[in-house]
């Protein structure tokens, strides 16, 4: 844990803090169908054209059920579209490597994965997918699923802000406006900056390089190409995380320099941080927005410290072989990023539901790998996925308010809205669905033959691999303990189901909560109203998140990373 690392950490959080307000203000305008943005002169005609093509009236607001229905129909059509593209890629254009069709179970898994904003990848991009499949089949969802997530968060915030209202806005207007005025402009700029760092953007076939020092019969290196930069910008900004290449953001073509790495990490947190400000302005309580931001920042820093420390100390088994102990745990990490930027990236990508990786989490030390795993199990509410992070933490806010209400024996109240039985039930339902999916599937995997057949490591690390896979899939993260071979029918199907549950069985209760809150009357603030802006609220919110997470997952974690840590430091066992 050296000084340059500290400087980079302060810089990262500082820049994020400075960008929170401008992005939040932009979000307020984008998510208001009447709002003006700086891009109106160019994009307004396109917006009008899109509404005409879709045949929708952007001012026609929807109830929560209609909103959910539109979102579900749109996601389903997109899912089938991507499935078709993957199955037919051999007859579609932009396939210079002449790759064959993607097998049905893998195509199903991949289509679900991208339409749910997960981007779990049971394939290697450079050897499986054509440029068309990447650019059209997958990148479509990088935009669409991100916009849908932000739309759900906006609907929930509207539900909180409005009173005695039946509707939550128009899904179609939100979808169009988020894509046009938020994602597209930022991606255009970010892509070009990434190209300036060395990320590729071309349509050429793979290049053959004559090796300087041929090794045996291998005299050439085949270097894959493709339109990567445009996809990488949205994969980060939309917290999708699906790599163009198998090694994801560790690949030098995806993330060539430490500066590109900094921008990519910032892009992951940018919109989720801005959404907290959007929450504050929408409910006319900026302190509440910043309190949520602060709670997230505290949890973020806690994760960074544990992971960074564990990776800096390194693997004592390797130090015993004479490795320079100052080097830390470099297995699976890139020299240009080193220990600090690999630890920071791992924390950021799992705090959010991004799932891009710039180092192989499977080769992290036990405690270093525990951080990304536990981040996902907390529900990815630390800034979180675009939209998903905000609606995830608002569920915890409702629970925190409910718990404090119970403690003082009053009807819990959140920003002037009574929190009643129905609201608490749907909030708890979202958590239970996550828990059942993660622990249920992981337990099945740990005792079934096809589940165990995929393991890349034995011993407690094997359990961590299974647990990580289902935490990642259910949380719509997409990062992996990559030693696990997920491309088998069993994993393709179970992980696909976990991703589906984690997305839509989360969104439906959240929208129901939004509908219920929106219908409520506003109570006048009283002496006994619980303030949702101060230090006390921040502490209670953090406590709620950590206690729910710890109570649920510590037993499983004790059998995985925690026992592995003690085995590593206190024995000579190897697996």
């Amino acid at each position, binding site marked *: 844990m050296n000084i340059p690392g500290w400087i980079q950490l302060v810089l990262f959080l500082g820049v994020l803090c400075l960008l929170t307000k401008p992005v939040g203000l932009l979000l307020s305008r984008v998510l208001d169908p009447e709002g003006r943005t700086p891009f109106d002169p160019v994009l307004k005609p396109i917006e009008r054209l*899109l509404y005409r*093509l879709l*045949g929708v009236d952007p001012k026609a607001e929807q109830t929560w059920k209609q909103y959910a*229905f539109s979102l579900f*129909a*749109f996601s389903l*059509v*997109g899912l089938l*579209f991507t499935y078709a593209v993957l199955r037919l890629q051999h007859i579609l254009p932009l396939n210079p490597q002449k790759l064959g069709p993607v097998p049905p179970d893998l195509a199903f898994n991949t289509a679900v994965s991208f339409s749910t904003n997960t981007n779990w990848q049971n394939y*290697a991009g*450079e050897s499986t997918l054509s440029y068309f499949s990447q650019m059209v089949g997958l990148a479509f969802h990088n935009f669409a699923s991100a916009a849908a997530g932000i739309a759900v968060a906006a609907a929930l915030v509207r539900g909180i802000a409005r009173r005695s209202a039946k509707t939550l806005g128009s899904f179609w207007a939100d979808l*169009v406006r988020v*894509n046009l005025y938020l994602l597209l402009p930022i991606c*255009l700029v970010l892509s*070009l900056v990434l190209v*300036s760092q*060395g990320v*590729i*953007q*071309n349509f*050429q076939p793979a*290049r053959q*390089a004559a*090796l*300087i*020092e041929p*090794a045996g019969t291998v005299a050439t*290196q085949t*270097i894959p*190409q493709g*339109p990567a930069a*445009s996809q990488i910008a949205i994969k980060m900004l939309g917290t999708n995380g699906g790599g163009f290449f198998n090694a994801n953001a*560790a*690949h*030098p073509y995806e993330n060539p320099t*430490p500066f590109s790495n*900094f921008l990519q990490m910032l892009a992951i947190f940018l919109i989720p941080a801005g959404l907290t400000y959007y929450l504050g302005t929408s409910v006319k309580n900026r302190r509440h927005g910043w309190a949520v931001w602060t709670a997230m920042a505290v949890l973020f820093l806690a994760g960074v410290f544990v992971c960074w420390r564990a990776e800096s100390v390194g693997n004592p*088994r390797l130090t015993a*072989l*004479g*490795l*320079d102990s100052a*080097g830390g745990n*470099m*297995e*699976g*990490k*890139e*020299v240009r990023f080193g220990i600090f930027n690999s630890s920071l990236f791992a924390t950021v990508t799992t705090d959010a539901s991004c799932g891009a990786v710039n180092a*192989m989490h*499977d080769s992290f*030390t036990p405690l270093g790998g525990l951080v990304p795993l536990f981040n996902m199990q907390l529900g990815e509410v630390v800034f979180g996925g675009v939209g998903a992070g905000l609606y995830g933490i608002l569920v915890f806010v409702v629970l925190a308010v409910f718990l404090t209400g119970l403690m003082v024996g009053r009807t819990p109240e959140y920003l002037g809205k009574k929190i009643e039985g129905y609201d608490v039930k749907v909030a708890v339902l979202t958590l239970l669905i996550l828990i059942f999916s993660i622990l249920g599937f992981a337990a099945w995997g740990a005792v079934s033959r096809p589940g165990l057949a995929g393991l*890349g*490591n034995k011993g407690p690390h094997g359990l961590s691999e299974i647990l990580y896979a289902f935490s990642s899939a259910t949380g719509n993260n997409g990062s992996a*303990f*990559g*030693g696990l071979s997920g491309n088998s029918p069993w994993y393709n199907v179970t992980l696909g189901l976990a991703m589906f549950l984690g997305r839509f069985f989360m969104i439906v209760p959240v929208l129901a909560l939004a509908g219920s809150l929106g219908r409520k009357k506003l109570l006048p603030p009283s002496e006994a109203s619980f303030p949702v802006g101060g230090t006390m609220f921040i502490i209670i919110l953090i406590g709620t998140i950590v206690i729910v997470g710890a109570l649920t997952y510590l037993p499983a974690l004790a059998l995985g990373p925690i026992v592995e840590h003690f*085995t590593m430091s206190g024995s000579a066992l*190897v*697996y």
Partner: protein
Amino acid sequence: MKSWIREIRTSLRATAALVVLLCGLYPLAVWGPAQILFPAKANGSLLVRDGKVVGSELIGQGFTGAGYFHPRPSAAGGGYDALASGGSNLGPLSKDLIESVRGRAAAYRAENGLEPGAAVPADAVTASGSGLDPHISLQNAGLQTPRVARARGLTEAAVRELIGSLAEGRDLGIFGEARVNVLKLNLTLDEKRDGGR
């Protein structure tokens, strides 16, 4: 039933319209300026020698000869296979990992004339995340210098100077780690030799 059909129809239209915009126009709007402003980078930062592509500045290559600097161990395919990027994904208690590192550390010490048990740079004996890491640490390059200098009949000072001229510091003095690009280092060494030939 009617509302079902309406929603599906709107979804189909939305998908079609957004595909054209976000998957057609957007990548092209990045491709055009990228090809004009940064053509070399957009096309893979390729390195050309005598009119032949010999690799990419960003993609590592394997080297084993005594006169070349050696890159990190690679888990990409058979080693530096650019079509199979990836790490070893071996856990910290993996027997495979520990035995491999033991073997690599012994080989590294033997090749570079280090004492048995001498400290070995972590990056020299561990596989990178991409398997294509183009860089090594400056410490690693420094320990390989005497071997390379001897094999090429150069002075150690000359090789050190070369490393110094190609070494990259932290980006903007802040981001990332100091490092040196192995392929560029080896190409420059070859150019020196060919220049004198």
